[in-house]
Every structure is written in structure tokens, then in C-alpha cells.
């Protein structure tokens, strides 16, 4: 395999293209609404009408606007693409009529809607366009050129430098500078090094990584390969949740195809570079998103974290230097290499570069995946792209960062979306879940919901998290059953502080965030539920 071979594959594939293309979303969301039957119906209709030479029915990944699914896009029309929404298998004949520019009478999405027009697609450029189960489609979309360029033209240190210059920060939540991490692994001495992709997307209300893995698996594999070259690793692990069976199967297909073409394995592009990737399937433990717990799980052990340092960059899998990045981080690598660090650094704010994919869900009109440049305001996302709350209700808060994040109240909607601004409000960027809550939502119940989650998911290794989350949950229960007094709130705050500062890993350290942020912005909802202090004790505490 050489650079010319890539071009040949792409050219051959372009030649097989038809005039019209019906892109059928076959991501997990649309699949639940019989997307496979829709594709079968379209295939049958194209055949019945004898249009095989003109119309291609293509399986594609997520198109983003999942709330309108199942979606079918039609390319090749005179004016612009048409996006059919809420498609059923029975709509196949009508869709074919649309191809023939006849009256179809189907529901069509507006491509000028802010939901689409405000997006900036870097990571999700191929999402909903290419067939995720055909490597030719990815190669035709300029795939594996970045890897070729890196392996044949630049030294590993230069790759690290390029990523550093781009200003890319970890998309898993904490926002650690990616280039710095790569540099540390590259400099760590070790006979063997590993690259791990963290696809244990455990935050409830988030599915960006699932969508990327389902829609464009090769983008992540190529990013991992470039990372491996940069840090000097020859083995990668892709850790994916067992809850994402479609993502796992598409990754398996992608790895097999890449191996067949010699894009994974030994001597890639006839260079000495060797890189293999194995999939590791999670087994339903939220804590495994924490990097040291994830490594334990990759090694086949219970997913419990360990203290850092030593950081995985120095001592990771089996004691070897290990680079761990999130799915979306790896997905950013290829665009950076292809278009240059300067281009990437030009997007976003001063300290948060590039774009971020969010899962916009909850009580918002338009549900789905969006990719926006950093620095966009929450108001633009929720009100313009999301269309505001459902049924004329008022947006009360936006939750970001899942169980580690917080609730940002409506009056702060003009906040810019970047790592620092969200942290200032007691929330975090997180992996990209954005759950909108309207005025019918009880914030104390939301705090209890997250504490129940953390209590359940605490691995039990350190006491502050194991016992603290249980106690905080019980205090919240007590408040909600109107049996608590002001003292209980004080105790809750004290516990939050303790758990935050003494827990071993990120799960415990951030578990109090939903409570702290709702106490900060919606304290009245707590105090309304309180009982007056018994008279005797009041006097005692007043002394």
C-alpha cells in the first residue's frame, strides 16, 4: 500500500458513484425506528423501477438531527439536498418519486434551520455522508492520507509539536492539553508503549462518542495510528461500552478492512511502522471512564482506580507508558494534520480551540447531535439551534458534564461555551452531554438523581466516595420527604466539601457537583422543603 494506491481506491470508488444518492441513516437512534426496513424498502423500490444505474441507496452514520429520525438524505438534485424526516418503510415509493422530481408529499427538514446552519463540522464531517462499513468510502473522502503524510514526511516529534500548536485539549471532560500528554508519553522511557482510546462514554445523556464510532470508525483508527507513531507505540486498545453493540460491530468491521488493506498491522505504507488495535468491551461500570480504572479493566481486572502519580503517561498498561485519549480527541487528529495546526487554532476561543460535539437532549424542541465552534453561547445552542423548551415552557437550566457537572441556570445562558467559563459556573465541559430542563423540573430531584447514580457507580475502593455518596443521597431523600431541617443542608454542604477534596478519583471528586451547583443557583427549592428547627435545639445552636 502506497499513497498512489489510496488515490486509486478513491478514484475507482468515485467511478462507481451514481447520479443520485439516497443516504439512509443507520445509526442506533434511527435503527430503533426501523431504519433497516427503510433501506430494504428503498433498495427494493429502486430495483423495481429499474433505477439501479442512477440511484444509489447508501447506508450512512448519524446525520445529527436524531429527534426527527429516521432520516433519509437525497443528493444529486438540481437545487440542493433534500432531507426527509420521520421516514417510514412505507415511504419508499414517495422518496423515489422525489428523485424523479415528482410530487412526494413527505415531511422535509429545512436545511437553513439554525440547527444545521450554526454547526461547524470538523469531527463529524463524514457523519451521515459516508458508509461506515466500507473503507473505500472513507478513503474516497480523503481518508488515511493524513497517516500516509505523517509516516512518510514528518518525524514523530514534529507530529507532537503540530498537535501542541493546534491547542487541542482532551475532549473527555477535563480538558488536558493533548500535545502535552503526547509529549510526555513520547519522552517516557520504555521498551513498549500503548495507545488507548477511551470510548467508555458513561455520562447519562451523552452519545457523541457512540455516534462518531458508528458513523466514522476509520477516523478514530487513523487518529490512533498517528498518535501511536508520534509517541512510539505499536499496540492500541479501543475500550467501548457493551451498551453500544452497533459501534462495536462497526469497529470490528473497520479494523478487519484496514488490516486487509495494510493500513493496520506491520509495515504500514511500506515504512517500519507497525500498529495493531484490539477492541476491549466494557461491562457496564461508569468508573471505567477514569483512566486508571480503564487500564485495570483493559488488563481484565476490576475497574478500580489507583492514585496518580504515576500518571499513565509514565506507568500505564502493564507498567508501560500509555497514552489515553477520548474518542472525540482522536477524531480531531486527522483534520488537524490535514488542514494544519494554524487553521485549527483559529477556531474557538483563546484557551479552548476547535469545535465540540454536544448531545442536545432533554426538554428541548430539537434533539440531536451538534458540532459547534468553542465560544458559542449556551443561548445560541439552546434557543436558536434547539428551538427553546418544548410546548412554550421556559428553559430553567442546562445540565452539562453529567454526574460530574452542574446545572447552569437560564440567567447564565449567555455564557460562552469553553472549558474555563463552564468551570467558573460550577459545571464542567464534560464529554458533551447537554440536557435542557424546563420549569417543571424539580432541581432537588435532579440532584438526588445524580447522587443515586454516583452512589451506585462508586467502585467502593475509597471511603469518602463509597460512604459519602450514600450519606449525601440519604440527606437528599430526607430533604425531598420534607423531614429535613436547615442543619441537614449544612451537613450536606460539609459532606460535599469533604467528598470533593478527599476522594481518590474523579468520580468521587466531582460527585458533589450536581448538589453544589443546584444549591448555589436553586437554593430556594431546597429551603422550601425544610422543616423549622425544633425550638429547644434552636436555642442550643444559638448560644
Amino acid at each position, binding site marked *: 500500500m502506497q499513497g498512489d494506491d489510496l488515490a486509486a481506491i478513491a478514484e475507482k470508488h468515485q467511478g462507481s458513484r451514481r447520479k443520485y444518492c439516497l443516504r439512509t441513516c443507520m445509526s*442506533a*437512534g434511527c*435503527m*430503533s*425506528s426501523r431504519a433497516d426496513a427503510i433501506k430494504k424498502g428503498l433498495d427494493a423500490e429502486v430495483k423495481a423501477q429499474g433505477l439501479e444505474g442512477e440511484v444509489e441507496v447508501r447506508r450512512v452514520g448519524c446525520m445529527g438531527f*436524531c*429527534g426527527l*429520525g429516521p432520516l433519509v438524505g437525497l443528493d444529486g438534485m438540481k437545487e440542493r439536498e433534500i432531507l426527509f424526516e420521520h421516514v417510514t418503510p412505507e415511504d419508499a415509493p414517495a422518496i423515489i418519486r422525489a428523485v424523479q422530481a415528482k410530487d412526494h408529499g413527505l415531511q422535509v427538514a429545512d436545511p437553513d434551520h439554525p440547527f444545521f446552519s450554526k454547526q461547524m463540522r470538523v469531527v463529524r464531517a463524514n457523519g451521515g455522508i459516508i458508509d461506515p462499513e466500507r473503507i473505500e468510502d472513507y478513503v474516497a473522502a480523503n481518508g488515511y492520507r493524513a497517516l500516509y503524510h505523517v509516516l512518510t514526511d514528518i518525524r514523530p516529534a514534529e507530529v507532537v509539536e503540530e498537535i501542541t500548536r493546534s491547542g487541542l485539549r482532551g475532549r473527555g471532560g477535563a480538558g488536558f492539553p493533548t500535545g502535552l500528554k503526547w509529549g510526555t508519553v513520547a519522552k517516557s522511557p520504555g*521498551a*513498549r508503549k500503548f495507545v488507548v482510546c477511551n470510548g467508555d*462514554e*458513561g*455520562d*447519562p*445523556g*451523552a*452519545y457523541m462518542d*457512540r455516534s462518531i464510532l458508528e458513523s466514522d470508525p476509520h477516523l478514530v483508527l487513523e487518529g490512533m495510528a498517528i498518535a501511536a507513531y508520534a509517541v512510539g507505540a505499536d*499496540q492500541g486498545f479501543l475500550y467501548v461500552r*457493551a*451498551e*453500544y453493540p452497533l459501534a462495536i460491530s462497526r469497529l470490528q468491521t473497520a479494523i478487519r478492512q484496514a488490516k486487509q488493506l495494510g493500513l493496520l498491522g506491520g509495515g504500514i505504507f511500506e515504512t517500519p511502522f507497525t500498529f*495493531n488495535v*484490539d477492541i*476491549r*468491551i*466494557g*461491562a*457496564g*461500570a*461508569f468508573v471505567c471512564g477514569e483512566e486508571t480504572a480503564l487500564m485495570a*479493566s*483493559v*488488563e*481484565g*481486572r*476490576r*475497574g478500580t482506580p489507583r492514585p496518580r502519580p504515576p500518571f499513565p503517561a509514565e506507568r500505564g498498561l*502493564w*507498567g*508501560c507508558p500509555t497514552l489515553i485519549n477520548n474518542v472525540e480527541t482522536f477524531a480531531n487528529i486527522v483534520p488537524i494534520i490535514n488542514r494544519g495546526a494554524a487553521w485549527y487554532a483559529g477556531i474557538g476561543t483563546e484557551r479552548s480551540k476547535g469545535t465540540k460535539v454536544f*448531545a442536545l*437532549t*432533554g*426538554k428541548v424542541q430539537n*434533539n*440531536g*447531535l451538534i458540532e459547534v465552534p468553542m465560544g458559542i453561547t449556551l443561548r445560541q445552542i439552546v434557543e436558536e439551534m434547539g428551538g427553546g423548551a418544548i410546548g412554550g415552557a421556559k428553559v430553567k437550566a442546562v*445540565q452539562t458534564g*453529567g454526574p460530574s457537572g452542574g446545572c447552569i441556570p437560564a440567567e447564565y445562558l449567555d455564557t460562552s461555551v469553553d472549558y474555563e467559563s463552564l468551570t467558573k459556573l460550577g459545571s464542567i465541559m464534560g464529554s458533551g*452531554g447537554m*440536557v435542557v*430542563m424546563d420549569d417543571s*423540573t424539580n432541581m432537588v430531584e*435532579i440532584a438526588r*438523581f*445524580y447522587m443515586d*447514580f454516583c452512589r451506585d*457507580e462508586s*467502585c467502593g475502593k475509597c471511603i469518602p466516595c463509597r460512604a459519602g455518596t450514600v450519606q449525601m443521597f440519604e440527606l437528599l431523600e430526607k430533604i425531598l420527604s420534607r423531614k429535613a431541617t436547615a442543619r441537614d443542608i449544612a451537613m450536606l454542604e460539609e459532606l460535599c466539601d469533604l467528598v470533593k477534596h478527599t476522594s481518590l478519583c474523579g468520580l468521587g471528586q466531582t460527585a458533589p457537583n450536581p448538589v453544589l451547583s443546584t444549591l448555589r443557583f436553586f437554593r430556594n427549592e431546597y429551603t422550601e422543603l425544610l422543616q423549622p428547627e425544633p425550638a429547644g435545639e434552636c436555642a442550643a445552636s444559638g448560644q
Partner: protein
Amino acid sequence: MIPSLTSAGEESSPARVTAHASGDKRFKILEAHIKKFQARQDALIEVLHKAQELFGYLEDDLLLFVAHRLKLPPSRVYGVATFYHFFCLKPQGAHTCVVCLGTACYVKGSAKVLAAAEAAAGIKSGETTPDSQLSLLTARCIGACAIAPAVVYDGQVAAKQTPEMVLAQLEKWREPCKATT
């Protein structure tokens, strides 16, 4: 020591495949899977996934078999099997109904959906009906947030579920049983 990941170590030399005493063919399939991983100890989770896929759940005998084949202490295998939510150590019902309790589903009323299912089936989440027909489970998030609230019926994700829809599905599962009894 760094275990070799690409080359087969000594342990990989395939021990003669002996049929399991029970004569159950599924053990043979599991054994082949273990060999695919060269009986590496770090493949424990992968092996348990396969075992659960084949047998439906992980009973003690099966865990001991895995421990023996991977040369791991049974405590380690049991510890891993009980740590991860995905592994179940009890038999599941003929049908499974998984209610997603992720944040997006929660704010859109999945708690009501679950309560309706619990009331109809007469069991709590995580339990199986006495007639082994239905297991009611919850998930932390299945990543189908845009179509919340989501419920997974026998592995099929269903979008925008209401308490009525869940009751209708549970009733549908019950129908054939009634017909046979």
C-alpha cells in the same frame, strides 16, 4: 513482566480440548474462544462476555471453568464478574425489558415508565418474575438520548416510550403464555 500481546506465549499451546463433563457443546465454543485469546489472563472480561452470551448468565460452575482455563484464582473471576453490572449471576427471564434511566430519559419521564412496568409485572427492577417470563432491568444510559425515553425490549431499542406503550408490550409477551396454559 510484560505479557506479550502479539506473539503467543507458552500458555497458548492449545491444551487438548477435553469435552466438559456435562457434554454441553457450549463449553467447546467457549474453549475455542479462550484459545483465540491464547488463554491470556487479561482476556478475562472478553471470556466472561462470551460465556454470558452462550449461557445467558454466569453460574458458579461456569465461573470455575473460566478460572481453571485462564489459570486464575476463582476469587479473581468472581470479583470481576460481580464488579461489572453487565454480568448477571442469576438466570434471566425469557424476555428482558430494560428501561433507560439516563438523564435525558429521566427528565422526560422514564421513572413513570419504570414504575408502570414494575406495577404491571409485580417485580422490582433487577428482578425476574417467578414464572421466569420477564426480567425487568434498568440501564444508566444507552445513548439513545434524542429519542428519550427509550426502552430496550429483547435487545430492540424502542423510542419515545410511555407507560401505556410499556404495558402494551408486556401484555403482548404475556399473550402466548396464556394461550398455552
